[in-house]
């Protein structure tokens, strides 16, 4: 019983202590001023961003998304083609370089053969001369 009475008194005291407090002077005016300030800031931003509103429409959004997807695919294919062409060009250049090297080797080989035959001729002449002297 005493505990109940204490509880009731505590509750009464809480109601008294936690009663509503008056808001500060001009509170509402300050809120309204902040709202007006925010509205004017948003209005300024709205003008700057007005072109962006075009994308709010679903059809435009879908068209934009489709165009972006097509552009991405086309870009990817073009890139792949460019890479393929580049590889082909490099392969052809490599082939030409190989042909040039083979030609150079053939020329060098024939020159060597020629030099070798000359040397053999000279050696044969010298051997003939020695036999004649003996």
């Amino acid at each position, binding site marked *: 019983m005493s505990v109940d009475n204490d509880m009731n008194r*505590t509750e009464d*005291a*809480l*109601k008294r202590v*936690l009663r509503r407090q008056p808001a*500060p002077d001009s*509170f*509402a005016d300050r*809120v309204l001023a902040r*709202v007006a300030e925010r509205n004017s800031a948003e209005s300024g931003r709205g003008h700057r961003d007005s072109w962006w509103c075009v994308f709010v429409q679903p059809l435009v959004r879908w068209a934009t998304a489709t165009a972006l997807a097509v552009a991405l695919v086309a870009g990817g294919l073009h890139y792949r083609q460019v890479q393929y062409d580049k590889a082909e060009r490099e392969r052809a250049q490599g082939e030409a370089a190989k042909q040039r090297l083979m030609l150079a080797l053939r020329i060098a080989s024939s020159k060597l053969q020629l030099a070798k035959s000359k040397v053999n001729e000279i050696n044969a002449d010298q051997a003939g001369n020695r036999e004649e002297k003996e």
Partner: protein
Amino acid sequence: MAEPLPAEKAADIAESDFAEIVRRHQVMVYSIAQHFLADRSAAEELAQDVFLQLHANLASLKSDDHVKFWLRKVTGHRCIDYKRRRGLPQVALDDVPECAAPAEAGDPLLSRRLRQLVASLPEKPRLIVILRYQEDMAAEEISNVLAMPVATVKSHLQRSLAMLREKMTRALGEVTI
């Protein structure tokens, strides 16, 4: 019964209607924040932010009861968020300032001590106690506003009351409530 807003549909609320809503509910919002934060300037800043958020959400509110429910919910959550964000320490019993309330009936020393004890409660129980005794809300209403089970609200209330009664008795010694 819900008191109708000045304009029939909230979506059509004009700036002047919003001003009326602010004037009608400023005491409630400010008081919840003031009792929770025990800091007048922080309470005013928070209350202003709540009304700015209300202005941005006016189109979704349909009646004055709905506005009041929304204000209590947002104010409560913002109070808890504010405290957590700022990492405010638990208010020491002797640091709670006197409120600017008119002279109170009853023992002023007891009222001051009780206000300090309320300010020292953990966040959710404190908010529940404030909504219960400042706004005279039932546990069911508080559970709706704070989105928590009724049993939890009742449990917080009972424990807070018991704790407040015990601490009051201990703090004031012979003085009874």
